[in-house]
């Protein structure tokens, strides 16, 4: 369970997230949709501790985490797949994955997870000795997701995983997100591509100019007139 309570975030004097309260249950895929600049990435960056909220609380599994460092938040079981992948360009695929497990001491379990990811993403396994900057966009997205899974998280934050990918790759990404969830991990997805996000999600919220304008079951939201016109385009 991740809960935002009256969360506000400022960049200087500009407000990016304005008094947002949201709660998503554990064990499901949920999403926040909204247009570019609505504050979606800021919410994820605040959960991860990269950005400090100006007010409000973030509660994960019953404990407030808004004052923790990014390191402590990873230790609590939250991993973040950032917007634009941000794989380490001049680390090999293998090094990128292993650095995802930077804080884990259980070498045997890390090895097991590494082998599992290589099994799930054979294209990464083939390229494990190559620098990450030689991969295609879709492969880099897989690598960024694999790196997050290497931290053995209970909650995975994903920022625009479909961005810049071909339609085939977007469908693959959907399968990957479902399989991550099937392993018992919660996923919080942030997307401009509302169609994809809503079809994967249980609960959803719409963010407009830093405020929540709508929240509810994703299945119902797909039929909402406003959401259809503004975010799905049909």
């Amino acid at each position, binding site marked *: 369970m991740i809960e935002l309570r009256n969360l506000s975030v400022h960049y200087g004097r500009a407000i990016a997230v304005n008094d947002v309260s949201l709660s998503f249950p554990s064990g499901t895929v949920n999403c926040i949709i909204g247009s570019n600049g609505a504050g979606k990435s800021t919410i994820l960056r605040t959960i*991860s501790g*990269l950005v400090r909220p100006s007010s409000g609380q973030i509660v994960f599994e019953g404990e407030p985490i808004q004052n923790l*460092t*990014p*390191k402590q938040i*990873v*230790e609590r079981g939250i*991993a*973040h797949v*950032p917007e634009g992948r*941000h*794989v*380490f*360009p*001049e*680390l090999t695929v293998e*090094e990128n994955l*292993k*650095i*995802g497990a*930077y*804080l884990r001491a259980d070498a045997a379990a890390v090895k097991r997870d590494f082998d599992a990811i290589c099994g799930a993403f054979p294209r990464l396994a083939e390229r494990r000795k190559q620098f990450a900057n030689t991969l295609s966009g879709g492969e880099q997205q897989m690598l960024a997701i694999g*790196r997050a899974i290497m*931290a053995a998280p209970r909650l995975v934050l994903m920022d625009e995983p479909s961005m810049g990918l071909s339609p085939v790759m977007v469908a693959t990404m959907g399968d990957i997100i479902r399989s991550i969830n099937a392993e018992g991990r919660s996923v919080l997805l942030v997307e401009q591509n509302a169609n994809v996000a809503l079809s994967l999600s249980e609960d959803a919220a719409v963010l407009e100019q830093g405020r929540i304008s709508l929240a509810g079951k994703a299945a119902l939201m797909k039929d909402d007139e406003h959401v259809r016109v503004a975010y799905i385009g049909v």
Partner: protein
Amino acid sequence: MQFLVETVLNSAMASASTALVVVGLALIFGVMRIENFAHGELYMVGAYATWLFGTSFGAGYWVGFAAAILVTAVLGAAIEILLLRRLRNNPMGALIVTIGVLLILQTGAAWFFGINSNLLVDAPVSGVLSLGGFNMPWHRIVVIAAAVLILTALTVILRTTKFGWALRAVAQDKDAANLQGISIGRISMSAMALSAALAGAAGSLMAPIVRISPFMGQPVIITAFIVIILGGIGSMEGAIVAAVIYSTFFTFVSVYFDTTIANVAGLCLMLAVLIVKPSGLMGKAQKV
């Protein structure tokens, strides 16, 4: 012919010591995006520490060498924790602070050891290697071997250890490194200690060869910046290649002409490379 062989070996020694200095400088620029102007003074501290522990306390050269590495590493870590950490979002402030550190270390050395010191450090392996008329002091070969060993060890650390991956990750993408739970502060401190220790090692290795003075870091840092620009800012491989090219070029010009001409020619070499390849030999176009 003998003269040529000796000059090649002298070039190799100059390359080795320069490479140690510039790799440290490139490392710290990569991780912290700071040009450390006090890097030459860490080289100077390495030479003094070698004299103090090795010669003055009579513990022998290698104890002095170890002390030089230890002292400069601690000094580097202290500079990061006490000063640069507070200026992580202020690169201009950090640059000015490194100039302040330069002045403090220089003045400190002059205060403790005097301006015109005649301190001598004995080489660990004395004598001259004579082979068919060609003469080379043994210590020059020690410098080359030690530098190759240290740089190989550094490469192995950066490529194979968790610390090495974390350090490269921070240099490549700070936010993403933060998201893996890597502590930027801890890596910055370790990188600064490592970088300072490389300068300290170079100063210690050169202590039996050069004149030890509070200002001995000045020509070293100027050379280091020329080499860094030549190799491509932020590229450690480029720094090593450029150290070899520049030092060899410089040594040959100073042997066959003189050092003043070598200084001018060295700068012309850098300008020529920049005209052909503005990002340096192995540098990448910088993202703004």
